């Protein structure tokens, strides 16, 4: 490859692209050519860098300068100053919340500094559409090593010894899963990558595929060699067009190089794969429905065991992130991997940080890191100096963890003990203005809509819980509701067929566990302490504070605010529809919720 003095890494993940990073990339190329720098500077599109909140992001190497929120209109100035004159452009740098001095280098930004990358090891480093760049980062060396110097049994032993567990939900030990399918003597066998990612708002798996599709292909090829499979499927959703495009392209390149196909590396090992675009329902990500869906029938969970097998053949299904870890383990060794993490949970985990948090984005951290470090260090804390209330982990059927448990080291067991779960790594941070009953209601609504309806306990149970919780939010809660929810939740967990129903009561049970007083306030005092549930709150204006600026009067959608100019205003409660707009717009905090 031709030598350049500078590589400009432009984030071309879905989020940055939707903020026009592709236009920025093209503008950079045009401007660089215009200034005659095209032989010196290369512009490289990469996958998601993880800090989507401040995108579009570009990273300038070799200096490691981080520029954020870059717009097309910034490009000409940037090229002139930085790439021609060698002067850094401060106005495009990251400034930590509450500080003034910008931080020039990516490695000095706290968000990046405390992460540990294994699954995301190529992050911001390669163009995902060029297989040579993946190989440049030691790509396909693990496959070569496995095929030429390890037996399938040795590969399985290595994965077992590493302690790798499934990153898609349940945390089942990956090596054990492989071993059980290796023992089956029924051919052909299959490997499947679960890239369904149905959790609302989650984008860990999409990002891995968009940024580094070959890491998944290589992982699957190694798994296939280990169990004796000859074909693989990547099960993803139509809503992921960019991930699908990059994966299709990567598969094609791997075939051209002979890294997929027959007689790979001249060892006699044959393996090929394709992409299956699923229907997009949340339950499709569950293994038995995923398999049914590939077989061309309605995706619906089935009784297990033994039916996670595609076309009744031995099949290993792993999550995207699980597969992406495999090449690193084979190349660096189980010992290296198992030194990272906790007693029961080895390696790292990718999380998406969302909600009321300053540095929303995608992070990869060692297992055992505390929630506090994630929220306050990497995440940069809660915006607007609000108080932390809870962090919801594990996707829609995960649980909410309160402030008192923030020092919990994150691993599979501890999250489960706390009434939450690892799930696929969603983390939603909630501040003091969040009503926990309302949160439970939100997730129950999602789960009711996504239940496939096959078993009555799940179908009826979730609806019944939702009805009670909705009543509580509307001030119609009754004595005994909390206890009934607990009983019902336990029953739904015990009697549902698949993981959706089994974990559906989590949002309710975990919020009752840690925020019982909030439920009680709704039921006994008809009061919503966080000031969220419309039926239980009233808006009023504090006449001592109100300056009569009339901003709220102008924005109120229902003409509910009356009063003279420069005099304190009042809210007409008969007309107020409790939209909360006045509360948001008043600069003097004169609007109060009671």
């Amino acid at each position, binding site marked *: *490859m031709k030598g350049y*003095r500078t*590589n400009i890494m432009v984030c071309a993940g879905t989020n940055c692209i939707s903020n026009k990073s592709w236009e920025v990339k093209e503008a950079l190329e045009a401007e660089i050519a215009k200034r005659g720098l095209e032989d010196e500077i290369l512009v490289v599109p990469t996958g998601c860098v993880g800090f989507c909140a401040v995108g579009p992001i570009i990273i300038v190497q*070799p*200096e490691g300068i981080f520029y954020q929120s870059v717009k097309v209109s910034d490009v000409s100035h940037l090229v002139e100053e*930085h790439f*021609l004159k060698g002067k850094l452009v401060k106005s495009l740098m990251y400034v930590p919340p509450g500080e003034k001095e910008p931080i020039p280098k990516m490695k000095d930004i706290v968000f990046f500094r405390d992460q540990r990358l294994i699954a995301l090891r190529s992050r911001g480093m390669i163009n995902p559409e060029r297989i040579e760049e993946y*190989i440049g980062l030691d790509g396909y060396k693990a496959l070569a090593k496995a095929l030429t110097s390890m037996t399938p049994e040795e590969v399985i032993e290595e994965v077992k010894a590493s302690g790798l567990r499934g990153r898609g939900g349940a945390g089942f030990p990956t090596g054990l899963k492989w071993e059980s399918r290796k023992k089956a003597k029924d051919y052909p066998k299959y490997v499947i990558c679960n890239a369904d990612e149905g959790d609302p708002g989650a984008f860990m798996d999409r990002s891995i595929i968009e940024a580094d599709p070959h890491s998944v292909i290589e992982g699957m090829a190694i798994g296939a060699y280990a169990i004796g499979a000859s074909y693989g499927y990547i099960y993803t959703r139509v809503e992921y067009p960019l991930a699908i495009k990059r994966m299709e392209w990567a598969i094609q390149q791997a075939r051209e*190089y002979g890294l997929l196909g027959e007689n790979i590396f001249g060892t006699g090992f044959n393996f090929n794969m394709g992409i299956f675009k699923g229907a997009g329902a949340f339950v499709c990500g569950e293994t038995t429905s995923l398999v049914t869906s590939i077989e061309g029938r309605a995706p619906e969970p089935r009784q297990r065991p033994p039916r996670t097998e595609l076309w009744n053949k031995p099949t290993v299904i792993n999550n995207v992130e699980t597969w992406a870890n495999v090449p690193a383990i084979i190349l660096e060794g189980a010992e290296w991997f198992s030194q990272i993490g906790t007693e029961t949970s080895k390696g790292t985990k990718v999380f998406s940080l969302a909600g009321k948090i300053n540095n929303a984005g995608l992070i990869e951290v060692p297992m055992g890191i505390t929630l506090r470090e994630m929220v306050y260090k990497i995440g940069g804390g809660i915006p607007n100096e609000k108080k932390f209330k809870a962090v919801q982990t594990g996707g829609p059927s995960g649980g909410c963890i309160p402030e008192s448990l923030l020092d919990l080291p994150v691993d599979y067991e501890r999250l489960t003990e706390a009434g939450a779960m690892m799930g696929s790594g969603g983390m939603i941070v909630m501040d003091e203005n969040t009503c926990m009953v309302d949160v439970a209601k939100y997730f129950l609504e999602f789960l009711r809509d996504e239940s496939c309806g096959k078993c009555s306990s799940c179908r009826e149970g979730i609806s019944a819980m939702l009805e009670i919780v909705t009543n509580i939010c509307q001030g119609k809660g009754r004595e005994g509701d909390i206890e009934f929810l607990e009983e019902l939740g336990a029953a739904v967990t015990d009697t549902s067929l698949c993981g959706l129903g089994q974990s559906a009561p989590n949002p309710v049970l975990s919020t009752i566990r840690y925020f019982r007083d909030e439920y009680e306030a709704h039921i006994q005092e008809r009061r919503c302490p966080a000031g969220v549930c419309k039926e239980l709150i009233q808006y009023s204006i504090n006449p001592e504070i109100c300056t009569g600026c009339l901003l709220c009067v102008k924005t109120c959608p229902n003409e509910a605010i009356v009063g003279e100019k420069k005099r304190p205003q009042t809210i007409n409660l008969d007309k107020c529809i409790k939209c909360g707009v006045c509360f948001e717009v008043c600069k003097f905090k004169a609007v109060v919720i009671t």
Partner: protein
Amino acid sequence: MSKIKPEDVDRISEEMRRTILLREGVGRIRVIVHMDTCGIAAGARSIMKVLMEELEERQEIKDVLLITSGCAGLCNREPMVTVELEDESPVKYVDLTQEKIKRIFKEHVMNGKVVTEYILATETKG
């Protein structure tokens, strides 16, 4: 593309090495060319061009990073270059020409020998 062999993976990876080291920001030797308006006016761009050509001709060298920076406050001594070898203090060269930089590249960057005639006189260091 015919079928790849394990050796080919190593070869491609080796070919990519310079690029990867650059993106990792890892270099044993950093050559900093002072640009800015004054540097460019004095010919810093042609100094950069020479450095890039030298590197292009020597594909075996992987760990030299070419870095640009702004004015170093000595506009009348431009073009100027700072050579930083790992574990050694930086050396500033001033009043450069294409011939001088070629020599610096050969002697200092490649062979670790400072070209004393072209360095910034010690008096400015106090």
